[in-house]
């Protein structure tokens, strides 16, 4: 039981720290001091204390967007094992639920964007749903590889590190999956080089442009949800790349959080070292991610 509480505790509290680490890493690379590590928390608290302005064109759908986005991410986070601990919710087919929960969130955040009647937000919504049409099959190819390797249909077993490494074709398949998952992680969480959460030009953004009209606590919900999504999807990647477990339960939680922070540093390095791609290249990379993980499946089928 305490494991479940710890899981929820980490899921609720740690995600914004990842954004802080990414920001700090980028600042270090840019030769700046950068905002404090806890800045995302301060931002969230500030947003939750603010008033709200609703556009007069909007309806209940606009208000449903942030709520559904956060609730689905929270629930998806309950399906992923953190470190060597099993996920609180685990059953045959939970990886399908995992993917579809994010799709549900996407349905409502994109609808909320269209609810404002703004051309810019329409653009963002169109891009979001378009790119995920390619990200989704890539993710499922990854799941197919993991399912085959672990002989299971549940994320907890798939990500438990029991995949037999080092013999035959399993290792290359896992490498392909990791590469594919990294691309999916960056695209779905609107990171550079696919999208820039800090840009201020509406025409070029994907995710950020969808939330132009959200303000105050609503914006807070969205940013909190986005941080959590990065954390949850990142933890899938982490468990594929480094499926280690520490000897004691508490050390294992610590190891997991350290691993996540290391992943944040890696994302920060990628963001510092690369420029944003032009929008037309995003599908190209997603197709590549799809093909990489499809090759992974083919390797295992032989």
């Amino acid at each position, binding site marked *: 039981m305490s494991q479940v509480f710890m899981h929820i505790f980490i899921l609720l509290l740690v995600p914004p720290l990842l954004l802080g680490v990414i920001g700090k890493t980028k600042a270090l690379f840019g030769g700046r001091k950068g905002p404090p590590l806890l800045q995302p928390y301060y931002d969230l608290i500030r947003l939750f204390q603010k008033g709200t302005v609703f556009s007069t064109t909007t309806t209940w759908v606009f208000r449903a967007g942030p709520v559904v986005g956060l609730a689905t991410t929270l629930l998806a986070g309950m399906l992923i094992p953190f470190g060597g601990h099993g996920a609180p919710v685990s059953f045959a087919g939970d990886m399908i639920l995992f993917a579809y929960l994010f799709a549900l969130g996407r349905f409502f955040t994109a609808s909320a964007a269209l609810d404002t009647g703004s051309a810019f937000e*329409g653009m963002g919504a169109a891009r979001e749903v378009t790119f995920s049409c390619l990200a989704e099959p890539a993710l499922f190819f990854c799941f197919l590889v993991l399912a085959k390797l672990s002989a299971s249909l549940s994320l907890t077993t798939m990500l438990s590190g029991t995949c037999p490494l080092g013999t035959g074709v399993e290792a290359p398949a896992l490498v392909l999956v990791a590469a594919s998952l990294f691309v999916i992680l960056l695209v779905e969480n609107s990171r550079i080089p696919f999208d820039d959460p800090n840009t201020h030009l509406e025409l070029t953004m994907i995710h950020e442009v969808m939330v*132009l009209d959200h303000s105050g606590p609503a914006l807070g919900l969205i940013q909190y949800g986005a941080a959590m999504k990065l954390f949850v999807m990142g933890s899938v990647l982490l468990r594929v790349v480094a499926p280690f477990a520490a000897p004691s339960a508490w050390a294992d939680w610590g190891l997991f959080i350290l691993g996540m922070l290391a992943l944040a540093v890696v994302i920060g390095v990628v963001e510092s070292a690369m420029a944003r791609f032009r929008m037309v290249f995003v599908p190209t990379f997603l197709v590549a991610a799809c093909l990489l993980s499809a090759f992974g499946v083919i390797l295992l089928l032989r």
Partner: protein
Amino acid sequence: MNEWLVIAGIACHAFSGVPGLFMRRDTAGGQRLALGLSVLGSALGMAVALAAFWAPTQSIAFIRLDALAAIFLIPIFWVSALGSIYGLEYWPQMKYPENGRKLRLFYGLVTAGLAGIAVSANSILFLFFWEVMALGAFFLVTTEDHEREVRDAGILYLVSTHFSTLCLFALFAIWHLVTGTFALGPLPPGAVTPTMATVIFILLLVAFGIKAGLMPFHVWLPGAHAAAPSHVSALMSGVLIKIGIYGLARMVSWLPDPPVWWGGLLLVLGTVSGILGVVFALGQHDLKRLLAYHSIENIGIIVMGLGLAMVGRSLQVSTWIVLGLAGALLHVWNHGLFKSLLFLSAGSVVHSTHTRSIDKLGGLAAAMPLTALFFAIGAVAICGLPPLNGFVSELLIYLGLFRTLGLGTEPSWGVAAFSAALLAMIGALAVACFVKAFGAIFLGSARSDSAREAHESGRAITGPMFALALCCLVIGLFPRLVCPLLQQGVAVWIPSYDGQLPSLAMMAPMGWISVVGLTLVGLLLAIGALWGLRLRRSRVGAAGTWDCGYAAPSPHMQYTASSFAQMLGVFFVWVLRPQVHASGKQTVFPGPAHFRSHVMDVVLDEILRPLYQVGVRITTAFRYFQGGNIHAYLAYIVIFLILLLLWK
């Protein structure tokens, strides 16, 4: 006993439109009588169908009432009765005195035909009901036969359905040749040669594929669904095309020893149908055509499940059979529910705004909150998203497809696993398409006067929609309820396993789906309530949408359905082949410009129409013989008879 009750239910539907024929055109009595008969027939039929799950009977030789028939009967009766209620307000006799009576007559006949097909155990009876259904549907599609577009759609449907019937005649002739009887039932192993079995399989694939709207046999479907009145579209899309699935599933189960490639072919056709269906839907500007293409997509998903079950049958892997077929059968129900819901919502929009063009609508959620809510529920369900019913059936098919990888010691047929990733793509594309449709119709601000003057529909329209939405929610949250029914259906499909089938409830996480679904609902309410409290305690303002400083934004600057789908349209330009009509290059002082684009149906416009032209050119030569001169015709008969006498 039960058979007589179901026959009574079918008769109620068949005669529901008849009394109205003898009443005055400008009174509402006939319509109420038809509604009463329809509801009575449906209540009888559904009660008997439910009983048939536990006590299948065949005391009358030509009627078979078992679990598989019952699974198809229930949505037929349910959707048909709800459609009748909907028709009270959508197509009232007082408003449509010229065609209301015809519409109700054939509506009842089609329902009767559909239910009759599902219980027929005799090929003659099957064909009789098939033709009642097929021809009745022609008159339903052409309800508004004063419009050219409707007549065209009707003729195309008539040609397609005749081709389907032709294949059925051939099929049943061969069946009679092989078995020596008109009774329909399982063939014993070795009863047909492999060649003959393949011929039968191809014939039934084409015949039922046309009716189901499986790609590439779907050409009649979009036009017919768009042309028909909305509750008829709901009936056609929700249950009529499923009778093709019923025929396919039932007849393949009777053929002994299917080779693997049958299942493989179904899996491929299903996947292609799924992807191309949703891609074509993305290219549509007409709301009802868009929904019609989604029917093709969902038929594809159903056929994927059926194909998986067939592969499982050939390779004797019972888990694939149970998961694939249970997923397909549940998706038959689910699609019947959410697609009818979507068509009824679309009808409510058309009823209020008098247009089906998505790009002329917008902002309807404010004026039509109930319709918007029900459309949103239907849209979430059709995308297969939790916590609604579409998720459950897709999950079953996913689980089956994942299991073809051969996990652990299980047998494997791994190529099928690629369908799982493609099914994920279908899901994502469906989300894109329904965000587009929902957003462009109900959200933002109105793009035309008719959308600005929209009003909510009355209770006869929203009531049936509520009933369907509730069904979607109940199946989505408590799938355990339908588990035993599906298990019975699968057991009927593959009797040779005889109680040895693995339990669906053991393999599929039905309990977890309820837990997760309810948790999701709880989380939504909790976060919503917390935010609501926060909103109450803080300042809430209202202002216009942020327009980046532009002084005079207009509703026409919103993203339209076409602009929303533009990027995806570019990915799939190789199959969509959009026709663009735009004004050419502008000079320094541009004049008025225009831009129009529409998407053709590749199979119909680029393959079948040219073929048809060739056929017309060849057969024109023979028109000389058919000049309308009756003496010449008599002479032909005499010549032909003499030739026959000489030959024998």
